[in-house]
């Protein structure tokens, strides 16, 4: 009986310990940049949702493609209609892990270099993608910033020859999230 009680208590603590290290954001930012000599295009999405598990370093990021905003309305329309096909593929996600978790001490405030690896799903195509950046540990929040580059062709996004010189084949992506402990 005593054994059972100890066990149950232990499990409660075990799960308790595991419920703690989840951090979340609903208003992270993703920027992307396409740079060519003819035209620079950039867009921002302010409604990035993400969960971060500090115990095992798991990261999940999801964005609605329609929530990317451009300086020009027509670009936004083309982005959704012609390139990302956002009705067919409404979400872009990243499901990965912090690769250098052992170098990060979540109990000590400071900025740590961070490496992430995982699956990026975009336009219906899943690809392994790594990213580098920083993770800043502060009282009651975590601030993550990372960047990486993707090739449009890898995600089956076709650029017609007519606009080929205006849209870069590689796109720089930056992500910025301020996480708070998940309630």
């Amino acid at each position, binding site marked *: 009986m005593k*054994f059972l009680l100890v*066990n149950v208590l*232990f*499990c409660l603590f*075990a*799960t308790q310990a*595991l*419920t703690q290290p989840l951090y*979340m954001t*609903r208003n992270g930012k993703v920027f992307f940049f396409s740079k060519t000599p003819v035209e620079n295009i950039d867009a*921002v999405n*302010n409604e990035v*949702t*993400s*969960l971060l*598990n500090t115990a095992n370093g*798991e*990261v*999940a*990021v*999801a964005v609605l493609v*329609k929530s990317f*905003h451009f*300086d*020009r*309305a*027509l670009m936004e*329309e083309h982005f*959704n*209609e*012609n390139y990302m096909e956002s*009705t*067919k593929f*409404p979400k872009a*996600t990243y*499901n990965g892990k912090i690769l250098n978790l052992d170098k990060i001490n979540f109990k000590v405030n400071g900025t740590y270099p961070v490496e992430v690896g995982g699956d990026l799903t975009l336009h219906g195509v899943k690809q392994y993608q790594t990213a580098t950046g920083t993770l800043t540990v502060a009282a009651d929040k975590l601030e993550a910033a990372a960047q990486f580059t993707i090739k449009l062709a890898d995600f089956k996004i076709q650029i*017609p020859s*007519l*606009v080929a010189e*205006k849209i870069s084949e590689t796109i720089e992506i930056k992500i910025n999230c301020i996480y708070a402990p998940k309630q």
Partner: protein
Amino acid sequence: MRLNNKPRVVFTTLLVALSTAGYAQDLMNMLDQETEKQKKPDYVTATFKTTRIINGHSVENVARGVLDFRISHRFGFLSSGVYELFGLDQAAMRMGLDYGLSKRWMIGVGRSTYQKQFDGFTKYKVISQVADGMPVTVSAVAGMMYKSLKFDTPDRENFLTSKLYYSAQLLVARKFSESLSLQLMPTVIHYNLATGINDPNDVFSVGAGGRMKLSRRVSLNAEYYYQIPGHQLAGTQNSLALGFDIETGGHVFQLNVTNSTGMTERSFISETTGNFFKGDIRFGFTISRVFTIVKPKY
């Protein structure tokens, strides 16, 4: 003691594994559930490619702070033969500027060579179609036209207001799929001065239009206005137009064939005289170019 302890250790390990298994639940699934809680309505976009189906309005608006410069041409009747190069020797033109005041509200002005007409309109999107929600988009359009052509009866007392015309339309559209959108538009056009002694001041009609996307950048459009018998001008035909929208980056080209000459509601809906099926078909095109005047803030 040792032998007795073994099952206990196994049991403990199992229990811990089970209790944490609830947590091993994919982080992505958890995120999905979280975002589901705060879901915003998913508004349907790009029901039509531009603000016009062909001659008449679609439920689309130009975006806030965007200026749309439109040049439209309608040539002569194809039936006019080789001598007129199938109508290309004559052209009616309209130049227009449309501007988006807000996400839902746009205004526009234009000038047509046909009857030296000035026009202005205001269009407001009342309801937006939502995926898994509101089935249709509804817009209201009000227009005003001024025919600046000189009076053909200079010897009688003429009033400026006699050359004013008004139109009011309700546009009800639904994007059925990525490629198919359909629209209905009940319309009333008011003549301050009736055209003939037996003609009404108010002309009623119901329009129907649609587009079918042929590729990501090309669509086939059709538009027809059915005039309610007894509420139309004598000797007029219903307006029919067929066309393609071709998108090339910042421009949209609209190529079309229609039996109408004018490009304002009053001219094409209630004053079309050509019979489409007897060769009274005009080739025409519209070029739309947008300029961003006010950059949106995000």
